[in-house]
């Protein structure tokens, strides 16, 4: 009997995978017009991969939406177009063109305003225009303290706002998807995954990710202890070549690299196992004010 019980055991990753696939299918079944937010990072790659699995052999029945700030790494754009085409995914891109025309960038208006315009507003406008009633996001509870409080089905009011004090209780795997017109649900199928789970899964499943995650010699400048990559000849004299990689990817102005020799998947995972800093330490925007992630989420950022 013990051996039979043993043969019906799922590994940790397979259990997480089954839970996430269940969530993705539930949304496809219960909502009229879902969309999957695709930010081109490692979590997005995993989430898209799970969606492909959930509906195999059929195509993923909803579009992927990239809310593009215009300041992502060039490698990310290249990867985005390649990955979605390769996997037969329907990609939509939305940018806050008006803000970009006005020249809004973090150096000019500061990170708080820049995020509000290019991320939060762009996201809310895109969701509004698309008439989406559910939007998948790749956020994980282990990333940040306010994300640790997030439900898997997270209710947003007509203005896309989150009220952390009044979240719907969420029991077992019974998700409440009832909403009124104009309201929406943000869905986080990777809630229970950790950064280490994500990399181990990417390794096991052979999922493709942006090459920036792997260590390489890159031209950077050092700013407040962060290694900010250089793409123009602006900072030619300060710039130096450093063996580094990115643990998380955002806009190139606001995302620092970490010194690392991890140029293969097993090396990355090994590095992860002994990491002493959170992955988001390199994200300038998380540290621009107290409770900044919570504040952004309240306003509609995912």
């Amino acid at each position, binding site marked *: 009997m013990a051996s039979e019980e043993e043969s019906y055991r799922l590994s940790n990753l397979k259990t997480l995978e089954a839970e996430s696939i269940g969530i993705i299918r539930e949304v496809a*079944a219960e909502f009229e017009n879902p969309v999957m937010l695709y930010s081109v990072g490692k979590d997005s790659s995993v989430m898209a991969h799970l969606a492909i699995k959930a509906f195999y052999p059929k195509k993923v029945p909803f579009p992927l939406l990239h809310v593009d700030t215009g300041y992502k790494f060039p490698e990310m754009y290249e990867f985005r177009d390649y990955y979605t085409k390769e996997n037969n995914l329907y990609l939509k891109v939305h940018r806050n063109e008006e803000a970009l025309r006005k020249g809004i960038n973090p150096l000019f208006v500061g990170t708080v305003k820049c995020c509000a315009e290019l991320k939060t507003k762009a996201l809310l406008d895109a969701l509004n225009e698309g008439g989406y009633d559910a939007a998948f996001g790749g956020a994980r509870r282990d990333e940040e303290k306010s994300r640790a409080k997030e439900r898997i089905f997270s209710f947003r009011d007509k203005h896309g706002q989150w009220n952390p004090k009044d979240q719907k209780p969420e*029991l077992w795997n019974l998700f*409440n998807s009832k909403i009124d017109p104009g309201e929406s649900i943000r869905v986080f199928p990777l809630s229970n995954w950790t950064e280490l789970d994500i990399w181990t899964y990417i390794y096991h499943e052979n999922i493709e990710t942006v090459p920036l995650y792997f260590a390489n010699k890159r031209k950077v400048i050092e700013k407040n202890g962060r290694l900010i990559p250089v793409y123009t000849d602006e900072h030619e004299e300060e710039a130096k070549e450093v063996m580094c990689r990115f643990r998380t990817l955002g806009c190139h102005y606001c995302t620092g690299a970490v010194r690392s020799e991890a140029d293969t998947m*097993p090396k990355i995972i090994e590095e992860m196992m002994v990491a002493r800093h959170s992955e988001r330490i390199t994200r300038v925007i998380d540290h621009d004010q107290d409770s900044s992630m919570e504040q952004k989420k309240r306003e509609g950022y995912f």
Partner: protein
Amino acid sequence: MKGSESLIEQNQNIDLLRFATAGSVDDGKSTLIGRLLYDSKSIFEDQLNSIKNYSKAHRDQDIDYSLVTDGLKSEREQGITIDVAYRFYSTPKRRFIIADTPGHEQYTRNMATGASNASLALILIDARNGVMTQTRRHTFISSLLGIRHFVVAVNKMDLVDYSEEVFDSIVNEYNTFTDKLSAESIYFIPLSALKGDNVIERSDNMPWYQGSTLLDYLENVNVSGGRNLIDFRFPVQYVNWSGNDFRGYCGTISSGVIRKGEKVRVLPSGKTSEISRIVTYEGDLDYAFAPMAVTLCLKDDIDISRSDVIARAHNLPAIVGSMEANLVWMDAEPMEIGKDYLIKHTTNTIKGQFTEVVYMFDPEDIHRKPADFLKLNDIGKVSIELKTPIFADIYSENKSTGSFIIIDPHTNQTAAAGMISKYKQVSPDKACESVKARVIRYPGDKKAEAQANYDRLSMQGTHCIYVDDDVLFEGLCKGVPVDSEKYSNTIENLCNIVTRSGVSVVLCSECFNDRS
């Protein structure tokens, strides 16, 4: 890289314990979790630094461990936990997901949220205060939700001079209370979260305590079992269909095991078939088990939709028309008897009404007392009348087919969590009646009438197709004379195939003009 590969493999195979914290407000839950994470080196340095800075600036202390989990601004301002925080940590022996839940009575529903997926409850008791109402309420809710393992951390022992007598009297009081519950194991640990006694390190202050430290206990407690591998239940979640080439039923196996080639029955139609394929992205499987998310294909082409249940022909869930259930009421709006509520059960959402409150529980002592309705945070047993039957089991036998949530249709709020304790079956015929497919015949000259009826049926949600001679002449009966035997046989065959798959046919043809 061989070394790291085996490390990765090893890391995958260590098991996972999901546990929920519970207890009264201010008994130090967040501090204990913070301490557990801190001492097991699971807090990243940058996060720790920001906690230390905040502690110095706002709390006048070196480090306030509760800041590790109380992540919301309003929580830090008020020094209380409002919502569940999910925390992850691992030791070489085990991985943990902690649902750190609020103690405040106002947020009891969030405690239930955290406990519903946990297999162990960590109950905190302040040694100075002993067993409180919230301790009892949370223990009781955990027990109702099916948690069978409890570890009771008697905290703040430093404030009662590490007294063995205080500890013993709390153990006795708690044991008297839990005698009425069906706990499999209860383990008591005297500790101080603030000072770190018996959390990770054994305490020199309590030589009289010979048991495990908290971390030791959590790493080694055996919580296996409770998984139902006998009764195969597959609530259909999503029908994956693309033209004629593929028709699969996606879902998560609620319980049990299924093998390719096994005979199954589908509820509510009652039709039987055989599993022809178990499809996954990695390729077809020979067998699958709970909680795998798979896609099943059947040998016969029958009409199956979301909310239908696939089970073994001789091991079916009950077809439930009315039931009794334990309920935790979570909405600020009190329950209304006789009002239509939505009930979400597996992948099915139906309407139902509360007919009575059988009794409610007094959280002080779990005594039953009469009540007319339940209000926020009340726990009781109720009777529910369902407008459409569901396919269910008793919660204690099958967690996923025995649980449901109540949704208020006016506010869309999740109003309650329910656990089925008793049911009344309806006959399978009655459950199937609504979906029994039939052929509705109209002689050729009643085309308008036939089309009107088809429209009406479709509007009502009946699965049906419309067929008349024009349709037949273009397809199946091209070139076949209406009055020939071949023509009428073709029609009979067509009707048989279509109705067998659960779809009704509105048929308008000249061929049975004379006979009808």
